[in-house]
């Protein structure tokens, strides 16, 4: 495995591109439906250097970032509050699990009816979905805080409040980041889906759908590619923050 050194992860990428190019050459599917990788990258380049794709890219980032921000503001304190009392959490567990399992896209028309077709609706639905994921993870992080650590703080003279702020909060951080990473993935999915609904004028979801209807396949692939890169980037960003600030995680 080490034979390729730091280039090991690139093998899969190159392999995929080679297969794609080959499929294009032998025309596995119609060339209109599957353009060459080169055509897609050219569309990415055109779109991201001052084209509509760049605008849509930033709109989606904006919506997803706002959603995860609000979801964190709602989910983290609620998760701590619910998780620090097992009986309280057990009493709301079913409700949380039920809505966590409900596809957020299913409630989109409801939010649409309530808040209209604007930006706010998209952010509300994404916040709704992501905050439940965050809440659930934070609550479990708090509930699974190492008992010995809580006792250690207690015998040293920490009050209940100090045990919460000095120990439980830190104990729950690794799980909180799991929640944030899952939450941001979900928020992105919801935002992109929401951008495909009637009334949308921008965003990567709108871009994908628009180009599909215009049969601009290289552009559509470009938008899909950028959406994928964005999801990967968000995940990576949270991983880096976690590694920097939750350095003890898993040790």
């Amino acid at each position, binding site marked *: 495995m080490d034979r390729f050194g730091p280039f090991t992860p690139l093998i899969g990428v190159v392999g995929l591109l080679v297969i794609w190019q080959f499929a294009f050459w032998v025309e596995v599917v119609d060339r209109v439906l599957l353009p060459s990788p080169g055509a897609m990258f050219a569309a990415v380049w055109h779109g991201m250097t001052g084209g509509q794709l760049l605008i849509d890219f930033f709109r989606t980032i904006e919506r997803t970032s706002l959603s995860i921000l609000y979801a964190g503001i709602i989910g983290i304190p609620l998760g701590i509050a619910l998780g620090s009392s097992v009986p309280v959490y057990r009493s709301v567990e079913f409700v949380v699990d039920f809505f966590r399992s409900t596809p957020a896209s299913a409630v989109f028309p409801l939010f649409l009816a309530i808040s209209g077709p604007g930006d706010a609706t998209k952010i509300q639905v994404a916040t709704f979905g992501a905050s439940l994921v965050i809440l659930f993870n934070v609550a479990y992080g708090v509930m699974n805080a190492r008992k*010995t*650590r809580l006792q250690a703080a207690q015998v*040293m003279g920490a009050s209940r409040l100090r045990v919460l702020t000095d120990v439980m909060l830190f104990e729950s951080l690794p799980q909180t980041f799991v929640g944030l990473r899952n939450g941001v993935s979900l928020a992105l999915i919801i935002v992109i889906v929401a951008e495909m609904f009637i009334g949308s004028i921008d965003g990567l979801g709108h871009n994908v759908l628009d180009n599909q209807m215009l049969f601009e396949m290289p552009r559509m692939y470009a938008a899909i590619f950028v959406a994928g890169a964005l999801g990967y980037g968000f995940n990576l960003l949270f991983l880096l923050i976690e590694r920097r600030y939750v*350095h*003890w995680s898993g040790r």
Partner: protein
Amino acid sequence: MAAGDTERMAEGASAKPVSTGAPSPATGEAHITIRGLSKAFGEAAIYDGFDLDIPRGRFVSVFGPNGCGKSTLINLVAGLLEPDAGTIRFGGKRLRDTNFGYVFQNYREALFPWMRSIDNIRYPLKFRNIPRSERSERVERLVDRLGVTLDLAKYPYQLSGGQQQLVSIMRSLVIEPEVLFLDEPFSALDYEMTLFMRDQLQALFMDTRTTMVFVSHDLEEAVYLADDVMLLSRGPAEIADYVTVGIPRPRTAATISQGEFVSVKAHCLDVFQRTVRDA
């Protein structure tokens, strides 16, 4: 820490007679007085009307068969468990007015991995009215006294097991406790480290004469460190024997093969085996 001199119990030096007719603990002022202690987990009564005096300034090892309630005892005394009945006093004072330290078996889960070692050690000082400037001095004094050469700027997970437990012990000592509880503190360490840590703890005890209550599942270790070995029997726990170890300190590796050590340990083992058989 001259607390509790007010309460010099007239008969404080002796444990109340228990049914086994255990001998009295060593002479001296009682530091921890336990009366009528009862604790049950579900149906199983671990303690039922248990009485004990732990003398001041002595090293008491608690030894007994598995599940007899060795750890339960110090958890009750240190307030980690609520007794069903009974009173526990420290020279007449309640626990909350007593300056005590507690060392857990599982150092990995007892230290705070998000803090550097030095901040771990400093942490309990937050809850005592000690000015910020003096907090650092206290830690420095402790480091000097123990002759610790550890890099305390490291996080606990960057240290070896023994070093982590040493940090954990320092954290319990920085408040200059009058009583130190140790719950099998060396049982997760390898043998070489255990030997080293025993001697560290012995030096510390000789230096401070802090009352120490040491739970162990290793008889050799229990005898090696102790002024008194308290042997417990099982369910509900009673004192099977209370053995005074008169071997002068510092004890060394050579002590372990000495006649007196060997005979004390043999006696303890004999009592232990009897309590296991009877149960």
